């Protein structure tokens, strides 16, 4: 094989993957900067905007998901260690958790089960397909855990990821207004509910509003992820 032939193969398999990684990084940084300039407006979610931009570029250049995934798969794998890192704020804030253990546990059980059951019931009532319902069920849990749960119960991990991100954006946009309407002022309660319903994106929003709310939101998101991973497959078996 000629040198040029070898270089072409090299570009195909590794070079294109690397190019998509770089493009993902650049679009992410651009939209992140844009959101920060706009005072953290949750509508300008960098995940949503970067995803739309990259899909547009892929369509224009005639490339498919498999081509993107040569690089994307590496970036996606890093979501695993990044999620494992949630153990550290959970460990560091454990003292704060202990002071409100009972309300936390109650809110967690109630909120977590509400999030899963209501998504399944609404999906079923409106006639969604089983794969869609299985992908909707873990929507309030942080992405890597939701993707794994969806795969476990017959959903589509990529679809679950998108539902999770939309859920987070909905929570981030409407959360404060809902808590105000209910007259709940305690930042711990507000942050905690945000973390249960709207995982990492809600947590990012909670940190913008109030440091204590953000901390509690992060704790809720982590425990909710662990808890939902344990009970959702069981609920799914019971309902099926």
């Amino acid at each position, binding site marked *: 094989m000629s040198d040029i032939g070898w270089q072409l193969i090299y570009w195909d398999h590794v070079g294109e993957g690397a190019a998509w990684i770089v493009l993902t*990084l650049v*679009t992410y940084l651009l939209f*992140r900067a844009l959101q920060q300039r706009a005072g953290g407006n949750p509508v300008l979610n960098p*995940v949503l905007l970067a*995803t739309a931009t990259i899909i547009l570029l*892929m369509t224009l250049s005639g490339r*498919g*998901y498999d081509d*993107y995934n040569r690089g994307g798969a590496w*970036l*996606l794998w890093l*979501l*695993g*260690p*990044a*999620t*494992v*890192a949630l*153990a*550290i*704020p*959970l*460990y*560091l804030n454990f003292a704060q958790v202990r002071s409100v253990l009972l*309300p936390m546990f*109650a*809110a967690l059980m*109630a*909120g977590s089960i*509400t*999030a899963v059951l*209501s*998504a399944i019931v*609404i999906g079923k009532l*409106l006639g969604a397909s089983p794969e*869609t319902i299985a992908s909707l069920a873990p929507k*309030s849990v942080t*992405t890597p855990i939701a993707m*794994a749960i969806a795969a476990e119960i017959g959903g589509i*991990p*990529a*679809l679950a*990821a*998108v*539902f999770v991100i*939309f*859920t987070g954006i909905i*929570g981030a946009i*409407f959360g404060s207004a*809902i808590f105000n309407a209910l007259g709940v002022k305690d930042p*711990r*309660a507000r942050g905690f*509910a945000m973390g249960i*319903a*709207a995982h*990492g994106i809600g947590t*990012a929003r909670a940190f913008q509003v109030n440091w204590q709310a953000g901390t509690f939101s992060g704790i*809720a998101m982590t425990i909710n992820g662990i808890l939902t*991973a344990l009970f959702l*497959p069981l609920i799914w078996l019971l309902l099926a």
Partner: protein
Amino acid sequence: MSLRRARDLVIAFAALAACQIAGSLMSHSLHLPIPGTVIGILILLAALTLLRRVPGALRDVAEYMLKHLNLFYIPAAIGIMAHVALVRQDLIPILAALFGSTFLSLIVGVLVFQWVQGKTISDEGEA
């Protein structure tokens, strides 16, 4: 950045990756219904509890990765390209479930937290 610090950061990242890998291996080989990432979180929590402190480099790497958590969601979201037909077909139930269920869980979560907290405070006299 000193060489020593660079080394510590690399080791800290490797520790996070090792927890993820160990969790995935356990989940797969034992056919557990629990995702590998969740097992990874539990392994790290157990290790920190034994260690009784968080090494500085590990804390820095964790903070950095969590700050940029959004980046790693992008390749996951791009996966929707392969499922456009299904989303279009189920668009109404999907939107109803996303909005309805998120509002409900926000309301239930915040009210239950407040209600139980109020109860425990009045039970104990003061908290």
